[in-house]
């Protein structure tokens, strides 16, 4: 009915290769962007920002980053938590060392530093693949957490071993620290996510993305048609780590405010983000959003239902919630191994023909 490509003729290759080739899709995208920027900031409150929107936005950035590396370039990484920690600590050191510089620049620089660390830990990928690479990145995870724990310089010799974000403002509005309003947090993260998602989409649709996917699908054939495996894999590690570093910086500075490395950026964070991209869909930007939404929203939703509706005790609800989320993941992966992005694609294909069956 609504979702039609009939009559929508493309007359140039640029038109044909645009991100949303179908008109209805394009309009829906504009609508989502308009609501995200024009409506939500005015109605958001602290609960919605802290429980739902801000973690969703930040995890979406991290998921896009990991998806670039794992979904597009095929290099499995279990070091996401460690790389987020690099971003967080880099951001903290920069914020405290150069208080007069804008927080936005600090966040981006933190991403840049993480990119460099990512390239360093990406070097083994030139020799090892698959599970073996996963183990190598796992080593990065443990090493980085250990490093930030053991070297007091990273947390400015604070007695608690924690890092905490001082107040920083953008255009006069605080975006970090205790005085930050819900909409400021939300908008700051949203703007960064929007820009990074757009850049990721551009990278993955063109030459760079094809190189990554060529390495992922068949590295020997990729090399034979002129893909340099060294630069291609390292560029994926660099860009992926940049995204993850930015996410780590935001997670610490905007969302948590104060963080302890083992707790905030432990191995469970690596797995959480890996789950997001597997459930959302490997090799899909939309999948990164969908996976992040699933993993952030599902616990909140379940908690509200179990505690709010059924009146269960919170500790009981917390345990049951874990079980249900775990079961859902398993069921989901059996039903659709290619993730929510694939479900979405199938739904759209059905919708193209609806209401006719063929």
């Amino acid at each position: 009915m609504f979702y039609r490509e009939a009559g929508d003729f493309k007359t140039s290759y640029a038109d044909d290769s645009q991100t949303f080739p179908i008109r209805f899709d394009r309009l829906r995208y504009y609508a989502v962007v308009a609501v995200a920027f024009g409506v939500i900031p005015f109605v958001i409150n602290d609960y919605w920002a802290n429980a739902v929107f801000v973690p969703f936005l930040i995890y979406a950035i991290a998921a896009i980053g990991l998806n670039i590396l794992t979904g597009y370039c095929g290099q499995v990484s279990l070091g996401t938590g460690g790389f987020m920690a690099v971003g967080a600590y880099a951001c903290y050191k920069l914020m405290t060392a150069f208080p007069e510089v804008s927080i936005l620049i600090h966040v981006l620089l933190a991403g840049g530093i993480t990119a460099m660390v990512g390239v360093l830990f990406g070097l083994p990928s030139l020799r090892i693949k698959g599970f073996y690479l996963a183990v190598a990145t796992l080593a990065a995870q443990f090493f980085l957490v250990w490093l930030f724990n053991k070297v007091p310089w990273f947390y400015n010799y604070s007695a608690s071993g924690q890092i905490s974000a001082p107040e920083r403002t953008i255009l006069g509005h605080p975006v970090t620290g205790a005085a930050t309003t819900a909409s400021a947090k939300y908008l700051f993260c949203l703007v960064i996510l929007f820009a990074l998602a757009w850049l990721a989409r551009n990278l993955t649709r063109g030459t760079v993305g094809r190189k990554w996917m060529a390495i992922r699908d068949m590295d020997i054939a990729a090399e034979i048609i002129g893909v340099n495996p060294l630069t291609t894999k390292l560029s994926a590690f660099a860009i992926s780590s940049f995204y993850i570093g930015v996410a780590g910086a935001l997670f610490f500075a905007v969302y948590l405010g104060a963080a302890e490395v083992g707790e905030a950026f432990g191995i469970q964070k690596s797995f959480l983000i890996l789950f997001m991209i597997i459930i959302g869909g490997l090799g899909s930007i939309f999948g990164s959003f969908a996976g992040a939404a699933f993993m952030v929203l599902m616990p909140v939703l379940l908690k509200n239902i179990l505690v709010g509706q059924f009146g269960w005790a919170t500790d009981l609800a917390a345990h049951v919630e874990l079980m249900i989320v775990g079961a859902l993941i398993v069921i989901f992966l059996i039903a659709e191994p290619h993730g929510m992005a694939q479900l979405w694609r199938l739904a759209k294909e059905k919708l193209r023909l609806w209401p006719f069956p063929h």
Partner: protein
Amino acid sequence: MKDMTEGYTTADGRRIGPVLMEMKNITLRFGGVKAITDISFDIREGEIRAIIGPNGAGKSSMLNVISGFYVPQEGEVWFKGYRRGPMRPYQVARLGISRTFQNIALFDGMSVLDNIMTGRLTLMKSGLLNQALWWGRAEREETEHREKVEKIIDFLEIQAIRKTPVGRLPYGLKKRVELARALAAEPKLLLLDEPMAGMNVEEKEDMSRFILDVNDEFGTTIVLIEHDMGVVMDLSDRVVVMDYGKKIGDGTPDEVRSNPDVINAYLGVAHD
């Protein structure tokens, strides 16, 4: 055998140029096993050169030497009049040599169009930042190359499947897409490793037609490994015959056919 450095004209009027690639005394060993022993031959510009031989004769190894997968222990590879040092495959690709594989090596997760576009990587120049912003050169380049790719799609008659993921295609079409990807790089030299293996007669005819058309229209030099003798004898200008890693014959199809060594080793001896 004809010996003209400037080339010659074939019976059907195609112009064969001077030597494009020369293999000199190539020996390739894997540990103690000699895959290729002291083989020399040349490939002339514009010709279709076949390499034949029984299984395990070292044909694919030879192709792998040409495309840079294997570096021979002895011997020299000359291309366009220069000696080629040891190179990685992606560097060889940039010289203008592309190939297809015996077992199809396409990128299954990508569409036909993206697969073929990937073939043009060596010709695309826009940088990472340019790509990220999708502005200026990156966007222009994408459209230009899309146009070239569409020509190849038309040429190989695969318009209908351009947006289909490669993983879903049947075998014969995959082979064709692989040829398209190799052609997209606008190679000087195209290596085809058993382009007709496992095809039915009709598909073989199609593929033969495409190979001849590629050679004719783009002037691409083609090196071909194939088991179907009828196809080899019909298509190729000159044939190298290998057996147990050694060259046992080299010449036009007619010369090879009447060579007693070749008949013995490969085409079969008439037992009375």
